[in-house]
């Protein structure tokens, strides 16, 4: 028979492994965090930071993180995001808004773009129930920063979502050069109807450098710790729910269904 010590050892191993599972589950954000309207407001530091969106992460001290508490809920209202230039797809008066914080080099963002977004699009976006907003959370290196700027340049010509699909469908290994400026321009050239002269000029002068920095800083001070992060909210910015990770369509369906039934 197994002795007392072995029993104790086995229990200890089980406890350690269960703890590991629990903490990894929490750390990797597999939980939905609900943010009530009364959540404590934090000072938004985004606009004051002159560093580029990527180096902002390098210098970001995680001890400053406000523990996943969103800064100002009004800043994520649809009208505000549209007025500031964030790309939107879908009916602007749809009752629900999904805000994606993504990085074009992130493999899980790619998985969402290829697997889940098309289903969301056909089921909820095309039917006018949901709109999707993209915000930049540059976490994967300098090429991600360039890709974010280039996507905003495509947005100037109303081609953001075409460019979004093109980038994710041509995604290569991280920091392998697939998202360098030269290749970003080549990928843009494959989009029908884009004015390449205008696009190239926009990319070269880094027209949206500050815009991307601000998006990234917003994600950082909001305490988001990975990509993709999704905020699902009413279109006035209320009743926020956050998902961290490439959740499949049924997970979104559950939250959207609940919000729609609540009215």
């Amino acid at each position, binding site marked *: 028979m197994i002795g007392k010590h072995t029993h104790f050892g086995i229990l200890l191993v089980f406890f350690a492994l269960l703890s590991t599972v629990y903490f990894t*589950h929490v750390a*990797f954000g597999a939980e939905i965090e609900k943010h009530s309207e009364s959540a404590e407001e934090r000072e938004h530091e985004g606009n004051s930071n002159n560093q580029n969106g990527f180096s902002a992460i390098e210098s970001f001290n995680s001890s400053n993180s406000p523990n996943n508490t969103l800064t100002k809920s009004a800043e994520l209202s649809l009208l505000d995001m549209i007025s500031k230039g964030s790309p939107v797809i879908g009916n602007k008066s749809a009752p629900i808004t999904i805000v994606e914080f993504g990085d074009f080099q992130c493999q899980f963002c790619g*998985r969402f773009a290829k697997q889940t977004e098309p289903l969301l699009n056909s089921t909820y976006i095309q039917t006018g129930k949901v709109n999707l907003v993209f915000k930049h959370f540059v976490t994967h290196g300098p090429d991600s920063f360039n890709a974010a700027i280039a996507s905003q340049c495509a947005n100037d010509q109303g081609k953001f979502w075409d460019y979004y699909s093109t980038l994710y469908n041509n995604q290569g290994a991280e920091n392998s050069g697939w998202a360098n400026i030269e290749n970003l321009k080549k990928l843009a050239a494959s989009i029908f109807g884009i004015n390449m002269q205008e696009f190239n000029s926009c990319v070269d002068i880094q027209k949206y450098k500050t815009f991307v920095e601000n998006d990234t800083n917003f994600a950082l001070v909001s305490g988001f*710790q990975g990509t993709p992060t999704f905020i699902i909210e009413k279109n006035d910015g209320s009743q926020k729910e956050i998902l961290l990770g490439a959740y499949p369509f049924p997970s979104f369906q559950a939250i959207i269904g609940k919000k729609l039934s609540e009215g």
Partner: protein
Amino acid sequence: MNGNQITKGEIKEMNQNLLCFRFVFSKWVYVLIAGSIASIFWIMFNIFDQLLFFTPIVIFYLPPDAVIGFILTNITSILIGIVVSMNVYLLRHSKFKLSLASFLSGSSLSVLSSTCASCTSLGFVLVSTFGAAGIAASSLMSNYQIPLRIISVALLMWALYSISGKLTSNCVINGKSRKII
């Protein structure tokens, strides 16, 4: 003798390894340990791979880009379960030391390679703490995920072979160990 032929000694060794494997897993408690450990690691790997979610609904999904990784993590989970269970048997029934080095290196490598480092808080910590070196480390883990997992399977196979060898020697040296205690 032809080098390709399996010698009688090798067949004997294989049979002894198999015999010791059967010794261990003829006791339900070791099957239970192996099954539990394998299940825990399976859950952990699939959470890391963003294939298994518990909220808002419990769901498992397998997109095409994750199939190879999923197969490798299944193999890894099963091997970890078997190796842990055999180590527990060895601890209980033998004077030999545990075969932990290869097990720990294999299992930790597989856990590390299971995370898309740069997509998660781990990448965030790496980048904010180590800057460019952090990017390189997280990119390495993401870009070479499959090769790293194959290496971890190889290390676990080595751990399994090593522990089987120890159990076999124990069977040969100590006749009473042939009994299932």
